[in-house]
């Protein structure tokens, strides 16, 4: 909260017409994923001339709701970005809508169970502008496919010639997690020689993933592929593997989903055989959409209200090296704006494109 206050003070100097956007992050301020997301968002806000305030719910779902409630008061922003998880979206959207704050859901979208309560954007809740989520299936699918390919390449098959895989899900309830898992299933359908022995939910926790991996590796000693819903799960599983006398990248292959320096490093040193990432940029892309909306270019007109875009890229060592090299580079987000680029028909939120610097 404190860094955001500092940002707020800095932004007072900006032109008065700059729109104020508040973002409620479900995680901690120092959480790597959300820190990266916040950094990208701030970069985009600076490029687009938006006044951004970021609030962290510190992994407390109730705090997410109470933060929205607080923002209906004197500190009311012009726009609100919510990354609601754990089933708090309905309450957050309702609160914001009641206060008349235009709100965009980002990172997490409406789940089937919530659909009845929320309906479509701008219908039941007129101030709910829409949603932008990464195409999460991509992450699961891309990483699984790369993992399987690597396994096949290395020939890590059991006596029956099958590749045995175990999977560590982030969880079974969060929308993005479910979609990643679906991506995995999709890849498995393409490779019938791969047998998923068991998938367990690790609650995004490295320690839990380590423990589960330890027992799964004992339960399925012939398993050679470990698919993970996040890099932390993969790293936990790696620790367990090392403890079980397995060599990550050699006789046991890991995949992960994340865009972080640590994950990139693991790709480079071969411990991670497959890594998909880039979705952390969703917040920054949402600011692009809000900027355009604020300037009269409503995304609902040509892209619909509920956008699901492919943001993931598969990081091979070369791309990883490039990410590590480019991560501090100042990319002008205005290039991805339809207001600034009237010729742009559709938003291109792919990470590769971002790294390229053009849509």
């Amino acid at each position, binding site marked *: 909260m404190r860094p955001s206050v500092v940002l707020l003070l800095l932004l007072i100097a900006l032109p008065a017409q700059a729109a104020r956007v508040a973002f409620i992050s479900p995680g901690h301020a120092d959480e790597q994923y959300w820190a990266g997301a916040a950094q990208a968002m701030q970069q985009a806000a600076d490029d687009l001339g938006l006044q951004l305030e970021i609030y962290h719910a510190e992994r407390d779902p109730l705090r997410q709701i109470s933060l929205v409630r607080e923002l209906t008061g004197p500190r009311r922003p012009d726009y609100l970005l919510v990354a609601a998880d754990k089933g708090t979206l309905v309450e957050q959207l309702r609160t914001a809508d009641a206060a008349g704050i235009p709100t965009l859901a980002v990172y997490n979208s409406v789940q089937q169970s919530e659909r009845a309560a929320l309906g479509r954007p701008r219908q039941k809740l007129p101030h709910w502008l829409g949603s932008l989520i990464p195409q999460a299936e991509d992450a699961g699918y891309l990483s699984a496919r790369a993992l399987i390919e690597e396994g096949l390449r290395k020939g890590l098959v059991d006596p029956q010639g099958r590749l045995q895989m175990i999977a560590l899900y982030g969880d079974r309830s969060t929308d993005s997690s479910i979609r990643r898992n679906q991506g995995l299933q999709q890849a498995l359908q393409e490779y019938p020689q791969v047998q998923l022995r*068991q998938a*367990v*939910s690790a609650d995004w926790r490295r320690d*839990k993933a380590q*423990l*589960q991996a*330890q*027992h*799964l590796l*004992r*339960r399925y000693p012939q398993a050679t592929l470990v698919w993970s819903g996040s890099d932390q799960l993969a790293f936990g599983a790696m620790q367990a593997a090392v403890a079980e006398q397995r060599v990550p990248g050699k006789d046991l292959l890991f995949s992960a989903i994340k865009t972080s320096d640590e994950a990139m490093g693991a790709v480079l040193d071969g411990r991670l055989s497959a890594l998909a990432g880039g979705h952390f940029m969703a917040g920054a892309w949402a600011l692009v959409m809000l900027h355009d909306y604020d300037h009269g270019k409503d995304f609902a007109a040509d892209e619909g209200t509920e956008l699901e875009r492919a943001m993931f890229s598969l990081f091979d060592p070369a791309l990883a090296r490039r990410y590590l090299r480019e991560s501090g580079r100042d990319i002008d987000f205005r290039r991805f704006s339809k207001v600034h680029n009237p010729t742009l028909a559709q938003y291109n939120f792919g990470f590769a494109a971002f790294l390229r610097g053009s849509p």
Partner: protein
Amino acid sequence: MIRSERFRPLRRRLLRRLFWLALCCGGLAICGQTWLVYQQETERFEAGVEEIGRTHLPLLAVGLWDLEVEALQQQVEQIAARKEVASVVLQSSTGLLISSAAAEQETGDVDAVLPIRNARSPDELLGELRIHADDSQLDRTILLAAGQKIVEVALFTGLISLLIGYSLHRELHVPLKRIAAYVARLSPQKPAAPPQLRRRQRDWFDEMDLVTRGFETLHEGLLRHGAERDAAMQALAAERDLLDSRVAQRTQVLQRISGYQAILSRTLLRCVHLRADAFAPALQQALEELCEFLGARACAMAERDEKRQWRWRLVRGSLWRAGEPLELPNEQPGWSLLDCEAGQALVFVRYDDVGGGQLFVLGGEPRAGDADEQRYLQMVAEMLFSLLDRWQSAEALEQTQAELERLSLSDPLTGLGNRRHFEQVREQECRRAVRHGQPLSVLMLDVDYFKAYNDQYGHGAGDDCLVRIADCIRHLFQRAGELPVRLGGEEFAVILPAYDSDLAQAAAERVRSAVLALQCPHAGAPLGQLSVSLGVAAWTPADEQPLDFEALLERADRALYQAKAGGRNRVCVSPLR
């Protein structure tokens, strides 16, 4: 058998036994209860385990399969939270170990083991659930049950004890105490009121009444017995008194007898070996003892001399005087009561067959009524008479002895001492002379020409001649210690103690002169008359040699020979050596 004086009421003993019985029963009941509770708890635990298997096992299987440690931990804690469960340990086949908070370290026996199977493929064993029963719960339940039972038994026992104690006190203790007090008062002498048991009026009777009646009967018997005993005691006392008097009488008699015996034996003992002159005091003492013992005023003995005259011999008391004659009114042997002098006297008389006799008289009021007493007195009299006899015999014997002695030591012809006497005396005189440091002298005398005298005048005249010389010598030496003896034939000797040589010579000279003065004619002698020659030898302590009588005699003899050789009728003195 009673060994101690400690009183322990029946009631207390009974109650104590009741208490121990209750304790045993209570203990048994508690054991039974404990067993039942244990069974129940075990069953409950088994039911609980079954329920756990039903409710928790599927969830555990899912959790194990999905490796949901928190969920498993939660399940495990839920199971451990059950009342009958102390702790739970879940172990997967892959080595996952989850235990309830209470079982940080798994200790003790596992009470139940539930296998956890994979719901998808039941053959696959995912792990096992080990359940530890909560023994403290069991202990608590058992304690509670035991406590309950103890309270029950204690209450029941207390009530029963109170009831029994009260009944015993009222029905047994109090009446028995009264009966005991009544019995303690019972005695054969005095009648006692029957015990008042203070029991209510009733139309039945019980053991207590029987006991009371029994004691009353006993009391009556006691009274009867007491009366009989008193009568018997009185008879016995009379008998005893009689016996006492008899015994006293007998004792008196015995004492009398023993008194007599004592006097008899004492007197006899005293007089067994008495010299004649000691008889008088001994008999005098006997008379005094008798006088004292018999309580007589006087006591005396008399003897009848050859003139048939009675004369008092020994007297005690002042009635008679020894030596005086007395008259006996009638001379009856045996004993008689005489009116003697001032009063009655008891007299015992014995006559011998030669006209002599003895008499024993007791003066004063003698007791002679008792035949025994008379017999004893007679015995005493007999003894005294015997002693008198004995006294006479002793006197006679001593006279005879003195005569015999005189005869044995004297020369029958001259009446001078003989050679034996000389031999006896000379040793004594020698010792005396040496002891007193006095001189001792010996005269040896020989009649001159005596053979010729005999030849001329005959032996009868010779003997007369010797008798005359002997009378001469006897007349000259009459002092104590001077002993003239006839050694044999016409030879005489005189021992002269305290005579030195001169005195002895003078004495010898007197002898020669005296014999010559007899002027006894002797035709065969040169002088024409009888003469003697004397040899003198003397020993004085001044002599430097010891006194040797034989040597002295020899010297005297040698002097005599010298006198003979010198012409006879002369005295020669042996020179001192």
